[in-house]
């Protein structure tokens, strides 16, 4: 298994995530897609750490931080999405377009 295999994998994941963000309308699904992007990051980080500079833990540290931050982010996002649901009775972000132009 070469580095670029992993890179391809993460790139694919990254792309899928972006696609999800662009294609999905439901806030939760968008959040999920963002999670995909973050996981692509994690994979890359670990891979680079393992392949390029073994011995240092930078990649792993990055991964851990990303996971933590992502968790917090999801929590916060969920809370706000709840507010959206409260005020608009929907989680569809397209209906939240009162501000434009």
């Amino acid at each position, binding site marked *: 298994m070469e580095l670029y295999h992993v*890179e391809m994998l993460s790139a694919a994941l*990254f792309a899928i*995530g972006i696609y999800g*963000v662009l294609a999905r309308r439901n*806030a939760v699904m*968008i*959040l999920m897609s*963002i999670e995909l*992007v*973050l996981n*692509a*990051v994690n994979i*890359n*980080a670990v*891979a*680079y750490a393992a392949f*390029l*500079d073994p011995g240092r833990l*930078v*990649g792993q*540290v*990055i991964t851990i*931080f*990303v996971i933590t*931050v992502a968790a*917090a*982010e999801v929590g*916060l*996002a969920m809370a*706000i*999405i709840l*507010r*959206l649901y409260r*005020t*608009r009775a929907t989680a569809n*972000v397209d209906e*939240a*377009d*009162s*501000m*434009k*132009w």
Partner: protein
Amino acid sequence: MMEADVHFELLWPEFLVAGLAFVIFTLDFFLRPERKNILAWVSVIGLAGILAFTIPYLLDENDSLFNGLYRIDDYALFFKVLSMAIGGVVILGSIHYVNRYLTHPGEYYAILLLSVLAMMMMAASGELLTAYLSLELLSFCLYILSGFALQNKKSNEASIKYILLGAFSSGLLLYGIVMLYGAMGTTSFAEMAIFLEGIEDIDGRLLIGLTLLIAGLGFKMAAVPFHMWAPDVYEGAPMPITAYIAVGSKVAAFALVLRLFAEGLLPAIEQWNVLIAGLAALTMLFGNLVALAQTNVKRMLAYSSVGQVGFLLMGVAALSTLSSNGLMVHLVGYSVTNLAVFFAITAFYNVTGKEEIADFAGLASRSPFLAAAITISLFSLAGLPFLAGFVTKFYLFSAAAAEDLLWLAGVAMVASLISLYYYLKVIREMYINPAADGEGSTIQIPGLLYGLVGILVISVILLGVYPDPVVNMIEDATAVILPGGDASTLNLR
């Protein structure tokens, strides 16, 4: 392989701000609702105290903790001071608004303080992951604050757009960081510089990494085309928070960007300066042109600050001692001016609850002070003399010209000419058009806002009349991140 002796005592300011935030959280429990203003005063006084402590404590201190992760130097100090000042001003300006429109003041002020902490860290971080973390901290605070008007649909919409896009952008940013890590095997600015010194051409990883980095930071700075969240968030967020986002997050973002590009990416400047220049031109033109078509004053200011970002990016594109001075000078002038105009508008909004440009008709007779304040600040934003904007723009554009970016400076001048047009439309409403029927009543401004706006306007004028002290401070700050040229080698007579 960390050194054993880490000078944690140098982090006192950060600790104190964080502590202050938690003090507010706890104090919130023990106060009856009508006494909540105490929280604001406590945090302001606390910030002032920390400010007073920090300046002498860290002045000319030059150290880097966790081998280069976290910097303590005049540059960081400058932005720490600036962030705390901005935070204090915003808190002061918020008081009446909070009482009138918002709930949960405790969280409000505490989170504000945390965001100040985040800003301080962003300016100080010397490594990508640290930068990312502090950036996320700031973002989280802003996500919450922008949605703080719970019952307000717009506020909520703003925060949902903000957080989703913010998360997305941080995804991009992270991917970029990791690519860079993969390409250079490091995430610290200093080592990146050393690496870039070594190579003659950049490979795909590096390219994608840098692009994603620029994209992610572009989102924070609200540079076109990563700016699209800005107008909606500005419009939806509570007025003081709009001011805070417009000023604070930009200051922090540029603090980070400037340090990153100066300490990390300077060796590859030929690679990216054209891109940044293009981004800058695009940003300033788009922002100002679209602002022409706005009818909501907050939205108009949002686009105008997007345009301002274009000016600031110019300083990055022409990165040199002179231009980073210019960037920071303009950043300061921009912050002061924007705070002035936003809180003048806040005062207006507190009374009338209106924020369309047309609603400002006849303000000159309803409240001469507000009208004058808004006029002066807008003229300053447009870069007219005797006001901060004139000097700072002149400085920034001169710097760009000095780095052979005269064409960009020309574009910037045209852009600020366009901006003058829509600023004048507001001034026309206030001075020339009479107030709509039944709205001729004079506007009473609370003494606090009166004083705050007054002080801000005065400092706008002072900055415009005699900027030399500020410029000197900034030169010291720049000397740290760009040791290449200090004022003496700048060929000054």
